[in-house]
Every structure is written in structure tokens, then in C-alpha cells.
């Protein structure tokens, strides 16, 4: 059976889906536990040993909670928006390579335009937020949705530009090949500025602190999800957590060698060690998300736009220009 052509794709898809869902569900618990640790509280500790079954209890609560829809809300879009927030994040997970088995990458879809795929599909996440805000027929929701769309469009430019320099260095759009190109030297050492820009935009694109203007409680009640309840509300959050998982994975793959274990060639690494290295790197960035949340205050809106357009954009453009010149000189030197 293990030789059948469908076996490996089927196992990969099941494993990827399981990993994604358990990482996202685990992340809800980690977020609350780490928040509690930082604030010197206990955090959830009632359901199961050490509160480990809390995500399960949350799920049961969400499923059985009544789903309300406001008067004169757009019924179709109100229903569709949570799914639109969740789906793109899930779809991007398919392109993340977790290591190499028998010389072939362990990934659901080994795409030649992998980086573009992740960027293109990942940029759709904003639709769930902006349409959810609009369809709710509520001023606060609409303002939250508008802020989110302005923020995500502004920061996406810097995100893409920072990635272009990585692509130029790696010479490929395929995520598995980008990992292989980092066998000797991680991209973070070659492109520290791009890594920094990516790190900042990663927070902005997932609407996390200190960029969570879409759901700025003191001003906008709950922002775009003010009117949502039950499982629809949960889908928004599932989408956010999966987006965090994917962005952390993307950071690990593009800048920190993905499944590469330091001082060990990728070809010589057993598959489980590679996958473990990848998960450890992702875990670090997921923890960073929570850490930053309780360390930095939320930006003011004009500060957000200032940072996006006047700091990050020129920085990533300059980095791209320098990268281009260095690569051109390098190629010229190699030709002579």
C-alpha cells in the first residue's frame, strides 16, 4: 500500500491538515497561558490537567452558542465573511515545506511559484475582515474593516518588496528550493534588513498587536467582529491563528533555513529531525507573537501609516536596490 501513487499525497495532506489545526488550537491555549505568565496570573487551569483541554471546551461552547445576525445585515456576505477570513490562511499552509523525505519535499503542493502563491492567496484574508465589517451594518464594524484594509494594503507592499530581495538571492520562487539554497547559510545572515521588514509586516498582516486596529477595543468595541457570535466568531479567530502559524512558517522557511538543522547538511538530516527543526522555528515565532502582544502598546493610527509608508517602504526599497547592485556586480565578477 505504501507504494501506491496516492499514498504519499494522501498522508501528506492528512498530516498537514492535522498539524495546522492542532497548531492553531494549541496556539489559543499557549496564548492564554503565556499571557497569564507575563501578567503573573494562572490562566486557564480548570479543564483537564493544567487546563490542557481548554481548546476543546472552547470549541463546545462556540458550537452551542446562538448565532445572532443584526437587523438589515447583508445575509449572504454576513455568512460568507468568516469563511473568507479562514480559508485563505488554510490554503497557504499547503505550500509550506516541512522537510525532505527520500529527496522529495514534504509539502502538500510543491509549487514553482510557491512564494507568489502564498502572497496571492494570503492577501485574500483581508476580504473576510472588510466584508464582515461591511455586512454587519454597524458603524464600529465598518470602521474596523476599513482600518484593516488600509493597514494590510499598506504593509503588503513592504512585505512583497522584502521578499523580492530574498527571491533574488535564492534564485527561485519555489519554497523547497529556497530552503535548499540555505543549506550553508541562512538568508537572515544575507538579508537581515529584509528579515526585519518581514518580521514587522508579519505582525501587521495578521492584525496582531501592536497592529490590531481592526479590533481596537477601547475605540471600536470589537471592530469587524462586533456583531458576530458562536462558530462564526470562532472562524475569524481560527483564521487569525492559522495565519499566524503560516506567517511563522513562512518566516522560518524564507529566512531561517526551514527544515535545516544548524551545522548539518539538509541531505544528511533524517526527515523527522528536519520537521522537528521546522516546528521549533515556527514555535519560536508563534511565541514571539504573544510576547510582543504584552510588551508593546498599540500604535496610534497616524503612527501606523508613518511606519508603513515612511519607514518600512523606503527601507525595503533601498534594501532591494542594494541587493540588485551587489548581485549584478557578483555576476559580473563571476563572468570575468
Amino acid at each position: 500500500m505504501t507504494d501506491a501513487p496516492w499514498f504519499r499525497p494522501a498522508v501528506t495532506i492528512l498530516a498537514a491538515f492535522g498539524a495546522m489545526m492542532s497548531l492553531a488550537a494549541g496556539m489559543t491555549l499557549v496564548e492564554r497561558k503565556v499571557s497569564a505568565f507575563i501578567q503573573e496570573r494562572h490562566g486557564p487551569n480548570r479543564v483537564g490537567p493544567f487546563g490542557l483541554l481548554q481548546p476543546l471546551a472552547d470549541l463546545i461552547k462556540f458550537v452551542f452558542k446562538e448565532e445572532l445576525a443584526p437587523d438589515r445585515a447583508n445575509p449572504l456576505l454576513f455568512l460568507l465573511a468568516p469563511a473568507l477570513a479562514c480559508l485563505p490562511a488554510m490554503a497557504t499552509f499547503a505550500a509550506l515545506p516541512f522537510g525532505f523525505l527520500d529527496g522529495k519535499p514534504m509539502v502538500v503542493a510543491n509549487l514553482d511559484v510557491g512564494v507568489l502563491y502564498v502572497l496571492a492567496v494570503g492577501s485574500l484574508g483581508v476580504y473576510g475582515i472588510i466584508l464582515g465589517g461591511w455586512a454587519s451594518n454597524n458603524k464600529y464594524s465598518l470602521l474596523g474593516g476599513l482600518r484593516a484594509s488600509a493597514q494590510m494594503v499598506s504593509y503588503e507592499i513592504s512585505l512583497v518588496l522584502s521578499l523580492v530581495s530574498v527571491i533574488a538571492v535564492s534564485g527561485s520562487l519555489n519554497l523547497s528550493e529556497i530552503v535548499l539554497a540555505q543549506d550553508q547559510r541562512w538568508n537572515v545572515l544575507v538579508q537581515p534588513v529584509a528579515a526585519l521588514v518581514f518580521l514587522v509586516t508579519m505582525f501587521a498582516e495578521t492584525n496582531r498587536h501592536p497592529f490590531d486596529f481592526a479590533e481596537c477595543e477601547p475605540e471600536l468595541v470589537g471592530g469587524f467582529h462586533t456583531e458576530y457570535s458562536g462558530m462564526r466568531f470562532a472562524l475569524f479567530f481560527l483564521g487569525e491563528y492559522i495565519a499566524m502559524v503560516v506567517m511563522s512558517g513562512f518566516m522560518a522557511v524564507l529566512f531561517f533555513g526551514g527544515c535545516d538543522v544548524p551545522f548539518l547538511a539538509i541531505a544528511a538530516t533524517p526527515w523527522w529531525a528536519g520537521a522537528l527543526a521546522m516546528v521549533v522555528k515556527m514555535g519560536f515565532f508563534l511565541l514571539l507573537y504573544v510576547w510582543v502582544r504584552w510588551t508593546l502598546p498599540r500604535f496610534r493610527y497616524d503612527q501606523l501609516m508613518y511606519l508603513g509608508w515612511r519607514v518600512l517602504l523606503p527601507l525595503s526599497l533601498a534594501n532591494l536596490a542594494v541587493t540588485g547592485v551587489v548581485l549584478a556586480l557578483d555576476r559580473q565578477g563571476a563572468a570575468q
Partner: protein
Amino acid sequence: MREALFYLFGAGALFAGANVVFRRHAVPAAIWLVACFFFLAAEYLLLGFPFLAAIQVLIYVGAIMVLFLFVIMLLDLHGAQPVQAQARFAAGLALALVITALAAAAAAGGEALAEAQAPDMPALVEALFTTFLVPFEVTSLLLVAAIVGALTLGRSPDITPPKQRIRPGRDTIRMVGGAPPRDEAQAG
């Protein structure tokens, strides 16, 4: 299978495109336009241009249409007057003409298109930045000109009297940190 999917997505693109024109309100029309772009991206993928498909989604769906929705929602066109019947008829007629022209062109140039090979990424980039460098740059210049033109047309000159305009360097609010306003500092 491939051919059936091609026609299915093509029909979907046409249906979505027709909805863009015939919807009364701006937000649903914009969402149908997003759907239309998706169907087109699927067509590119079926034709063997994954790069074009990804760029289509990234640029049009991920960036431009988000801005469209942003502006529509910001202007609150939800309760605005629906487009006049005459205008809709004219738009429908224009759509029909475009479809006919495109169908005719596709029928005439179909074989040439079928024979064209999808270039790989390096070849595409090489062509874009060597052979087609001047057209490429001219196109971007054209876009800049269009943006400047839209700004000029869209700006209403009488919106603020000259006296109340913000004087750069004197009236601007400091973005970060900064010293407190002078009055407060003196009072304290």
C-alpha cells in the same frame, strides 16, 4: 476534462462580469468583479501560466480590489442612487459588443494561441527586462500619468479656502513623541 473546466470557468467569468454591470449597488458589483478575476486566474492556470494566475490574484484581487472596496465603503455608496436604467442599458450594450469582439478575435487567433508555449519564469523575466524593457517602462509611465490625471480631475479646488490651508512646517501636528504645544508648556 481540461477543456470542460476551461469553458466552465469562462462561463463563470462572463456571468460574474455581467453581474458587475447589472448590480444596483457598488459593493456587490465590486465583489462580483473579484469573482470575475478569480475565474480569469483559473483560466490562466489551465492555459499553463501559473505565474500570470498568481500575479492576477496578487495584484488585482489582493490589492486593487481591496482599495476599490475601501473607497466604496468610505464614501458609503450603500444608500446611494442606483445607476440610471439608460446607463445600465448602455453598459450592457458595451459589454455585449466587447464580448462579440473578443469572441471574434479568439476565433481568429485561436490556433496561434494554442501553439504558443508558456515560457518559464527566467525566460519571461529576461524578455521583460531586455527585449520589452522600453514598452514595460512606458507602460508604468502611462500608469503614473493616469494617477496624476485622476488626482487632478478628482480634486475639487474650492474644498478649503486658501487661508485655512495647512501651512507646511508651521501647522502640522508632530507625529511621534515631540515637545508639548507651546501654550501648555508655558502654562505648566
